[in-house]
């Protein structure tokens, strides 16, 4: 039970950690000052959520490991985030597409997690959902702007959605820890979110004059710690200080 709860929390937190790290890469390089500030804001919110989760995870472990040890000192195979969030910032359409495809899920997920029997998780969800509602509005608005903007932006936005689509199905896969937590009334049954997710996504894409991809081949593995090659590089940066200067306080 403790082991499963720990893993369950990592699954939630790692998504936000890795996505926050990707958004953090953009800081100072956005297409406009306003979007730059907005992306930094998203990153900030995600890291805030991550801290609450890892602090809780550290408490469950009950040894002397801290939030930072959990966030920064695991090996590649021990990160449980979905493949979607680790995909690189190919261009702003990819940034927005990745954010949007995650936000729709994230919002549905947190809505349900608020009902968790685990009061800490319910409280984290309750606090996070306000932020994530804003993220969802931001990314949906930009999908529409880019989709229904110019010919170039339309093509780029479509390409990003097409390219990222293969990573959406994994959001609804259940791990053993998930199943256990659902049975305990702690976790969210993600399989039940799938239909609403694809409906909501399709709604925005259609409004954005974009095609809903028909792709039927999906990638998976993140939840088992089997990632794309991109993650290793991301972790190399994330972990650099903790690895180079072990056991120090900052």
């Amino acid at each position: 039970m403790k082991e499963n709860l720990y893993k369950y929390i990592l699954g939630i937190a790692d998504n936000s950690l890795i996505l926050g790290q990707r958004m953090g890469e953009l800081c100072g390089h956005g297409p406009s000052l306003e979007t730059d500030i907005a992306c930094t804001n998203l990153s900030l919110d995600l890291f805030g959520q991550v801290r609450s989760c890892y602090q809780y995870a550290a408490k469950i472990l009950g040894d002397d490991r801290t939030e930072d040890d959990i966030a920064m000192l695991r090996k590649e195979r021990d990160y449980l985030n979905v493949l979607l969030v680790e995909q690189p910032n190919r261009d702003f359409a990819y940034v927005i597409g990745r954010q949007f495809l995650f936000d729709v899920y994230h919002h549905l997920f947190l809505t349900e997690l608020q009902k968790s029997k685990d009061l800490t998780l319910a409280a984290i969800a309750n606090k996070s959902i306000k932020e994530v509602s804003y993220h969802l509005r931001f990314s949906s608005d930009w999908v529409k702007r880019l989709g229904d903007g110019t010919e170039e932006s339309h093509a780029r936005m479509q390409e990003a959605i097409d390219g990222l689509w293969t990573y959406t199905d994994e959001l609804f896969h259940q791990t053993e820890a998930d199943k256990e937590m659902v049975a305990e009334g702690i976790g969210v049954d993600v399989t039940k979110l799938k239909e609403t997710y694809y409906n909501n996504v399709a709604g925005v894409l259609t409004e954005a004059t974009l095609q809903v991809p028909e792709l039927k081949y999906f990638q998976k593995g993140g939840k088992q710690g089997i990632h794309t090659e991109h993650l290793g590089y991301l972790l190399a940066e994330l972990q650099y200080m903790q690895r180079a200067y072990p056991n120090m306080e900052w």
Partner: protein
Amino acid sequence: MSEEQIKNLEEQFEARILRDDKIEPKDWMPEKYRQTHIRQISQHAHSEIVGMLPEGNWITRAPSLRRKVALLAKVQDEGGHGLYLYSAAETLGISRDEMFEQLHTGKAKYSSIFNYPALTWADMGAIGWLVDGAAIINQVALCGTSYGPYARAMVRICKEESFHQRQGYEIMLKLSQGTQEQRDMAQDALNRFWWPALMMFGPKDEDSPHTAQSMKWKLKRKTNDDLRQQFIDQTVPQAELIGLTVPDPDLKWNEERQSYDFGEIDWDEFWQVVKGHGPCNKERMDARVNAWEGGAWVRDAAMAYADKKQERKAKQAI
């Protein structure tokens, strides 16, 4: 307008500044006042956004989650400062696009300090402590400047800058309480940023051409040398408090002046960096130009979308 009338207006204008009245965007102002303010405010705005780069480069590598969040928030604040300042400059009749154009072509300057590289985590401490610290000393004086929108932006910005300064100092403090390796890292950062920080106050008074006019318009309230001295007097004890050594062998307390005497600044280095040949001038400009050019399609899309939305609304209204 006759020459007489203009002269009259100018006299009234100078009298208002003397009375400490704020000049507002719709007020009449001499062309030189407008141009000087566009130059200074846009230069300040550019400094904020170019200043995002050296620190932004450490966001992905921050040593702890707490530090990462604080650094993100700081860099985001700097972007916000850029935003207020561009808006303040726009009230003088220049567009943000024009200002960016001037930055990218090298016509407009930004603070030279950001042309130095941020090489270690301790540089995040040194930059906050020294660079934001020096910026505050320059800017507190500007809270009472004559141009209303600039003065108001400055009040807001100064509050955040002093928070940044404390945050930077706290990073240094923590390092100084850490391992030998961490203390060395802190000392090394101070060694590299001390002299460039002193250069942030600009050339010596005798080599500073704009001082007299700027004093009159309250764009400056103290001279470069006075501000620099104030910074040194304030910062040296802070360094001592955390066991760091200011890298100036000539630094000595002067009992008579109740101030520190200090060594000669390397003005050749100062001018080299100002003229575009510092360690990171090219990287910084490339980053800004790439972000701007690479983002053109995004800005175009946003505009096209807004136009379409407007059109649809108009059609619905009929």
